[in-house]
């Protein structure tokens, strides 16, 4: 018994220490970066070799990449999730779809980058552009969204489907007018988590859509773009001490942005699971 208490104390200390360290790391980064926030920081271009100015083009770039990739990934992800939860049976085809989604979820992001480079930038001729980057990220998010949508739909009670069928509804009507609507909040959570991944992803965008530095706004979706993660990467790697403040500021902004997205997602999820209790 004494040994058990000793172990419980040791485990508790280790767990607390690990989490405090990790959280302290991110708090330091956020707090230190927060000092550099100013109206100019969000509205100006980087100037004087990244020592002055702001991160405006990177924000615009990240938001446009996020919008386009979600516009592609949401319909694909939701439909695939619907298939996996509502249509898939025990057949060969369903099994293959299921395995493909699982396999896609494990593919490293850099391999998605290579794939996007090869198919969008070169074969389809989009070059290094917002479009190539967004499509690559959309494909990368597809397994994330579709497996969460599948879970969301499977959590909808069976009685709901059966009542709809009893009223004479057809399969697609049951799925799209009853089940999807009932799982609305969970699907929003799934999309938010997918969005959080898109905006923080760096490696694929380095290969397919990012530009080191640009003095102009991209004119269309076929222009390359600066994004927040790629901007942080380039500054950290290629600039001296006098530019590091911008990396810290941009990291803090990116983290706060992602924390807001994730807290919203998990807040919604928690609210539903409490409502079901």
């Amino acid at each position: 018994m004494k040994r058990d208490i000793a172990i419980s104390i040791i485990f508790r200390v280790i767990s607390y220490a690990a989490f405090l360290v990790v959280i302290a790391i991110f708090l330091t980064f956020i707090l230190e970066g927060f000092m550099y926030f100013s109206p100019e920081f969000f509205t100006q271009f980087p100037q004087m070799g990244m020592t002055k100015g702001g991160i405006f083009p990177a924000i615009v770039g990240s938001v446009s990449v996020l919008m386009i990739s979600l516009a592609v990934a949401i319909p694909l992800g939701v439909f695939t999730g619907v298939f996996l939860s509502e249509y898939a049976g025990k057949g060969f085809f369903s099994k293959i779809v299921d395995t493909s989604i699982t396999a896609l979820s494990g593919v490293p992001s850099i391999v998605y980058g290579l794939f996007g480079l090869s198919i969008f930038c070169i074969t389809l001729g989009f070059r290094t552009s917002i479009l190539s980057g967004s499509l690559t990220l959309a494909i990368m998010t597809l397994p994330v969204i579709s497996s969460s949508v599948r879970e969301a739909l499977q959590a909808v009670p069976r009685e709901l489907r059966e009542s709809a069928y009893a009223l004479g509804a057809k399969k697609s009507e049951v799925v799209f007018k009853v089940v999807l609507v009932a799982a609305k909040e969970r699907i929003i959570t799934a999309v938010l988590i997918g969005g959080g991944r898109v905006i923080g992803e760096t490696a694929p965008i380095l290969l397919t859509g990012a530009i080191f530095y640009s003095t102009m706004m991209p004119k269309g979706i076929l222009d390359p773009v600066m994004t927040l993660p790629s901007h942080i990467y380039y500054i950290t790697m290629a600039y001296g001490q006098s530019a590091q403040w911008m990396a810290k500021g941009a990291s803090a902004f990116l983290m706060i942005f992602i924390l807001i997205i994730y807290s919203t997602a998990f807040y919604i999820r928690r609210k539903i699971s409490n409502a079901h209790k």
Partner: protein
Amino acid sequence: MNKREIKNNSKNVMVVCVACFSILILVMIFGFIIKESLPAISSEGFKLFSGMLWYPTHSEPEYGLAAMFIGSLLITLLTAVIVLPLGYIIAFFMYGYAMPWEKNIIKSSIDLLSGVPSVIIGSFLLVYVAPIFFKLGAWSRENILLGAVGLTILSLPYTASLMEEAMSSVDKSMKEGALALGATKFRAGFSVISKAAMPGLMNAVILTLNRIIGETMVVLMASGGAAIIPMSLWDPVRPLTAAIASEMGEVELGSIHYSSLFAAGLVLLTISFILTLISKKISRRSSK
């Protein structure tokens, strides 16, 4: 057929078509990566995968991926040695000892931490941790230990939550039975629950390894640029992912260098494909 039936049928067809799309993507990923790596494979042959020398820009270029492959394995192994026991301890703590409120706090922070972009971790390591390591005796700002620390920070929340899920999914009666027989909490958790949760725990290990080996930004920023096999913790290392990300920007399209980077991608793709299939098999068997 009336209008309603047409609508129903067309929607059903649409869902199936979109589902086909995911198969198509997987096939295309393999197709395109293989197609782009063929020139390197056919010109270098087996030497591409067994060669230790990676001098793609020399006048007499050498394209050997083996050193970088070993680099990937070493940094994965080093991280696994840190993160797997630590993740298990945290999972065990959450499962066996934590009060409900403690569990809630740890779970919420895990949820939030799972979204932290790896580029921020890389940036943090270079700005804050690298100078400390430098004082401790590192001769290079970027080294394998720094990379492993970053990968640990990145994967710890993921590993701990997967392992905790695996332990929680074991039937409660087993824990209660063990406790009723007089086992201590540690004994119940360690010998009874962990054994019953073994497939889930193995699954967590495999998914963690897959995540570490495919991670790019942390190793690109923190573990350095030399394609050598590291002999000490302070040596730099260049894993496959980092080589692809850093060299792809400067390479001439269609050259052997370009193609051999795709071959590196093919290696990563194959590893992740096998690991994910194994994990799927384990979790399917245990869910039956």
